[in-house]
């Protein structure tokens, strides 16, 4: 009697594995959904910067920081859970949400939040990838072992959303009478644009999103142009 085509044990084994995989995905989705809610709350609070004058930033930023605190709690859980499995097998599931979370942290820090004892917050501070990693308590750009971490792509994509947000803020800060901030944003965005130009991009999502940086540059340049035309640029920035 020849052996059967398919070993009956094989089916059970594979079925088991698929079921395990599905339940991992379900658990992940739950955590990600929670993170999503925290992120979108924080993003919502951050939209208020467009109508808040700089003197009132501290109050607003402390509200943002409490939102970020919740994000971090969730990402810690996500990191613990995800580190049990091959990182790149599932990371596409949370990539987008994590980017948004990173963006809220970056923007909050740029506006002067996220200060610590050693590094007080100040307007115009850009957190590096390593600093973002510290905030999230997660390794960055991990190569020597397989665990949850923050990737370069996620950082850069988050940075691009911050640039977009700031270009909008440049305009609104002028409306609020804070021309100095607009000029500062303009300088920052131009510097970053120079940085993005240096990357050798492949035809992927990063390239697509990097394109939007130049529109941000145009937007802030228009604002600065309008200001300079009317001699509204603060004196110390003029030369």
């Amino acid at each position: 009697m020849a052996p059967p085509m398919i070993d009956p044990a094989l089916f059970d084994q594979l079925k088991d594995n698929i079921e395990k995989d599905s339940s991992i995905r379900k658990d992940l989705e739950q955590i990600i959904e929670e993170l999503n809610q925290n992120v979108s709350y924080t993003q919502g609070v951050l939209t208020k910067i467009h109508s808040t004058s700089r003197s009132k930033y501290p109050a607003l930023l402390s509200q943002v920081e409490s939102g970020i605190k919740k994000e971090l709690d969730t990402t810690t859980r996500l990191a613990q859970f995800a580190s049990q499995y091959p990182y790149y097998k599932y990371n596409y599931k949370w990539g987008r949400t994590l980017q948004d979370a990173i963006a809220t942290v970056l923007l909050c820090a740029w506006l002067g939040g996220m200060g610590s004892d050693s590094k007080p917050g100040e307007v115009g501070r850009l957190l590096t990838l390593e600093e973002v990693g510290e905030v999230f308590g997660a390794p960055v750009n991990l190569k020597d072992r397989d665990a949850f971490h923050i990737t370069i792509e996620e950082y850069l994509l988050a940075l691009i959303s911050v640039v977009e947000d700031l270009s909008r803020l440049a305009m609104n800060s002028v409306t609020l009478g804070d021309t100095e901030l607009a000029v500062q944003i303009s300088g920052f965005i131009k510097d970053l644009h120079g940085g993005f130009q240096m990357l050798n991009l492949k035809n992927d999502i990063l390239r697509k999103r990097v394109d939007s940086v130049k529109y941000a540059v145009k937007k802030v340049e228009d604002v600065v142009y309008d200001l300079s035309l009317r001699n509204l640029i603060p004196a110390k920035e003029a030369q």
Partner: protein
Amino acid sequence: MDEAPPPKRAKIVSEDIAKPIDNSIGNTMSGFKRDRHGNEKRFNNGPRPAPKPKVAVVRNAYTPMFEQLRNELDAHHDRRDRLGKVSRDVTGLSKKIVRTINPDLPPQIQAEVDSRLAEISKLLATMAPDVQGINRYRYSRSLMCLEELAEALTFAHYLKTQTLLKPDELSAFVEELTRKGAAVSEEKDEDKDEPMPDAGNTPVPASGEQETTSDDPKPTEKEEQPKPEPLIMSTTEDDYFYGVFDLSGEMMRFATTSTALTGKMAGAEDERTIVEDMHELGSFFEMLPGKAGDRKQWEKKLDVMRQSVRKVERLGYDRKIRGSERPQGWVPDLTADQPGEDEEL
């Protein structure tokens, strides 16, 4: 000479005539844009600016950060490109194996399969360093070749034993192939100094960190550290599943041709035929819960497999009904009730 737009039509014509001479003196090398009068188009501030140098000379506070990130991304792209290229080669070779196995398994075919496998094993060995540890799933998408290889191997296994290869047998086989390939290229290395791709990139703990900051891999570095255990290529369960899906298509093809050539269903004497095996394989996949990862691809493959099962069962039916009436070499028209479905995906 022609910065200002000419005021009158007549003038334009005369300038137009003068144009070729102007050309030969000036920028003879490259072409340029003309306006609708045929004159060289000038940009607002004189001639077309030279294309910007790729890297802006101006440095600012963020330049070093971006430089570092750029190097990291470049290393990632290089790895992916390398894998993609080799993967295509392995795919091609795997497909060739399937083609040769198809009719039967006489010795000369076995020999050809072996030589192809030898080539594949060398290629796999070159890929192995790039897909260790965390990078295995990172480049899954560049490793489609493993599906094709799984298809070839499961098919060969089926033809020889009439059973389905198991995932752990598959990964053991692929690991063995990589090991052999590594051994072969190591031998070559000694006399030919063939550069192994990015040998330094292997995740020897903590050394990987500094390695990638230097931009180009050093082919010589490999000799410094004798590696007792060569790196292996691992296969994932997805590689197995999608390989077996494709196996169903190959079995269908095999059933068709062998029935046409021999006049009877392929299969062991008086026992199972390939029709039953196809049915079993079909039910096997139907009973499995859908894979959550890429449901679309799964469904698509499942559908193609169903088509193959239908084709083979029709083949069995035709044989039963009018097997003896048919001349040898007659091929049933399988497209009759399933028009327009190609089994090859």
